[in-house]
């Protein structure tokens, strides 16, 4: 599996090598003891990247649930006087980092300021990620925002799997008139720029989480349907499908039992890609000013909000960008692991 291209040589060597008793016993154990899921877990666990991805996602979900509760601040609490404070973390401050000081590159020279020392009661205040321009704790906001973004990720995957995958498979499988009609409808829907549909839709409805969900649901699955249709086209003529059909398998069985397992990995990766797309759609809406209604936050809206202070208070945009990037990286790595574990063609290697 590590060096796929070396396989033929290895196999040749194996053919001629002596098969000991030990090898046979091990093979037996695998089939006797492990269920499908156990195998799956084992296979995923073998891939370091996917383990990292899984752990990070778990950690991020955990922080999204717990983070806002342990900071001691509310996500929409504006503390007068605490505007634009740099991060300050206990213990670490003693090493001269994250001690709440920041360097302002003013046009008249660099200026090191530490708001914690100048404001009343600042000595005892800790904002682990700093505060935004309205004096709200960014640690709390980042994790509250992560919740919304995770929710949107979930919506995206569900929509992809339930609508996109099925739509594409049905369209590809039946072909002919059905395919034609279904593809023409998609073309109309997809032909209208996503941006226009989403923006128009949200302005027509009231801006809010429900409208954003709906907007993503309406447009998010098209890419997936295209890929699953293409895969279906590739596979439906293959011998094993023909074989299944000859043996009297129903269309649904062929589609979901025979073909789906073979293309699921590819589709899964595609659906992982729809996560950043969905999250960015939301971030884009925030950028245009019709995203999650304030004072609520999402990672996307936090990025566009704090983007406005990028050249003045750089630290504000770092936490949401970092969490978002980590989340994306983890989803991708996990998707890779899943693919390797699920893909029947890869199993042989």
């Amino acid at each position, binding site marked *: 599996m590590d060096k796929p291209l070396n396989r033929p040589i290895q196999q040749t060597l194996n053919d001629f090598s002596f098969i000991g008793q030990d090898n046979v016993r091990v093979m037996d154990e695998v089939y006797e003891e492990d269920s499908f899921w156990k195998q799956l877990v084992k296979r995923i666990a073998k891939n370091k990247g996917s383990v990292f991805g899984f752990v990070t996602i778990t950690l991020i979900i955990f922080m999204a649930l717990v983070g806002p509760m342990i900071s001691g601040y509310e996500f929409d609490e504006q503390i007068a006087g605490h505007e634009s404070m740099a991060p300050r973390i206990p213990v670490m401050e003693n090493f001269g980092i994250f001690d709440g000081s920041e360097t302002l590159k003013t046009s008249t020279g660099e200026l090191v300021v530490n708001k914690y020392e100048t404001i009343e009661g600042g000595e005892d205040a800790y904002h682990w990620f700093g505060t935004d321009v309205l*004096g709200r704790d960014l640690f709390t906001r980042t994790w509250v925002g992560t919740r919304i973004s995770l929710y949107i990720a979930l919506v995206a995957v569900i929509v992809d799997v339930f609508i996109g995958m099925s739509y594409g498979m049905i369209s590809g499988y039946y072909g002919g008139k059905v395919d034609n009609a279904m593809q023409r409808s998609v073309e109309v829907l997809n032909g209208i720029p996503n941006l226009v549909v989403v923006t128009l839709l949200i302005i027509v409805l009231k801006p809010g989480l429900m409208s954003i969900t709906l907007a993503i649901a309406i447009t998010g699955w098209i890419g997936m349907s295209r890929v699953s249709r293409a895969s279906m086209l590739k596979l439906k003529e293959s011998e094993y499908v023909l074989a299944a059909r000859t043996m009297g398998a129903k269309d649904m069985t062929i589609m979901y039992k025979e073909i789906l397992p073979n293309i699921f990995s590819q589709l899964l990766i595609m659906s992982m890609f729809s996560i950043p797309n969905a999250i960015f759609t939301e971030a884009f809406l925030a950028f245009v*000013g019709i995203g999650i209604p304030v004072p609520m936050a999402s990672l996307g809206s936090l990025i566009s909000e704090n983007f*406005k202070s990028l050249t003045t208070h750089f630290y504000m945009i770092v936490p949401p960008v970092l969490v978002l990037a980590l989340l994306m990286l983890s989803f991708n790595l996990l998707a890779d692991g899943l693919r390797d574990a699920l893909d029947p063609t890869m199993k042989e290697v």
Partner: protein
Amino acid sequence: MKNLSKKSLWLSGAASLLLLSACDTEATDEVDESVEAEAPAETDEQVLNVQLNVEVASMDPQIATDGTSFEVIANTIEGLYQTDSDGQAVPALVESAEKGEDGLSYTFKLREDATWSNGEPVTAHDFVYAWRRLADPDTGSEYSYIMGIAGLVNANEVLAGEKAPEELGVQASDDYTLDVQLANPVPYFESLMSFIPFFPLNEDFMTEVGDSYGTSPETLLANGAYEVSSYEPAATTIELDKNEEYYDADNVVLDGVDYQVIKDSQQAMLSYQNGDLDLVTLAGEQVDLFKDDPEFVNVQAGYLWYISPNTLVEGLENANLRKALATSFDKQQITDTILKDGSVPADYIIPDGLAVGPDGKDFRETSDTYLEYDPEGAKESLEAAKSELGQDSFTFGLLVEDTESAINVAQVLKSQIESNLDGVTIEIEQMPKKTRLERMKQADYDLGLTRWGPDYADPMTYADLWVTDGNNNDGAWSNADYDELVYSSIDGELSLDDEARWEALKEAESILLNDAGVLPVYQKGNAVMVQDNVSGIDFHAVGLPRVYKFAVKE
């Protein structure tokens, strides 16, 4: 197998790198050339580089409505008057003005040396044409109502389509004499004449270019300090050259003005620091970095931001509740920690620096302030309101436009109102401006954060907003005494007596604010950076924000 993949990898990599590096070398070569080529050229020519926040919407003086369009138009076209550095109207195309004894007529003698950039002289007919065009309902000018404000005979009838535009009270008795008849005295008539919608246009030229007026340098005419040399609709760069035919060209030092539309304020600031721009507007946080810079300038703008309460909504018809809301937020904190751009708390509705009265003093100097931040008083008013209404909790939506500053201000308002007033909940609803306007026009709102910019230098530009059934009185606040004072000041008895009128307007403001008919928040300021080798730019709060006629770049 291994060797193979390495080789092919290298090859495919090399192919892509080749492509990339091809772009690179081309780019870097060009950089060097242009740096050398441009540098000396810039020192020879004095061109002012100015940042705009938004594209020009129209170059047509009778159609344009926004500050940006006004600024570019005013650089190329001159009217009867212009605004000097103190904000006073001074003659431009007018050589002498004669005011009738009753204040009901004006005779303007125009200077005879003014010409359009196509060589035609600027005549009184150009004004008559432009004014009729402004008043004609078919033109669809948003500012046509200002003809009624100027008080011209038959203006309102022409606007309503009841009379032909030719019946408007303006005629050219000869090429250089403009006669104007007013229906009632208008104390600020001359200052109004420096406002863009009253600027002239050449009828022959307009007929020639037709609908394509203002779509390219060829379809534009100039009679002012500069002429357009590069322009297209919704352009992001606009170039103006000095107009050599301008009658006062000797006093214009700059060789031209280049506008660049940059919507992202951080990018604008970087370009400024790079030296690409001479004048930029700062936003919020950037002020922290530049406020000690000698090039930093704070300019007062006329815009007044306020909350309009919809008095048709249950609860908001109660004056005590409105008062509680109006006094429960700390305006100083909003201007100092959120806006930072020189905006000031507004405890009034007629902005500071808007208008000078018959006593020679600014309106605000001699009038009171109202609805100051007072959390204790707000709580008392709220208690009174609660017992009057028999209700303990209130939830109001707050309509906000989707701009950065408006959203931030709304969030602070929400936070402060909710913490100072027990039982009051504010729900922010953000939306595009057009949607907000529609909702407010339909009275489908509770509270709306909105603004009004002055059209002319008189308190009336604000006072007439809140008369009963007024076009922009979305909240339907109504007070008979207020109506009487305002109507009488427009064209009634009070309009004949400048001093009594001034006092009446002060009284009107006190009636409005003591009843908390609107909830003022702040008066907008602008934080701008001007390179230290640039001087002579005039900033104004009313009408034209910036004038470059006398600007110098060393």
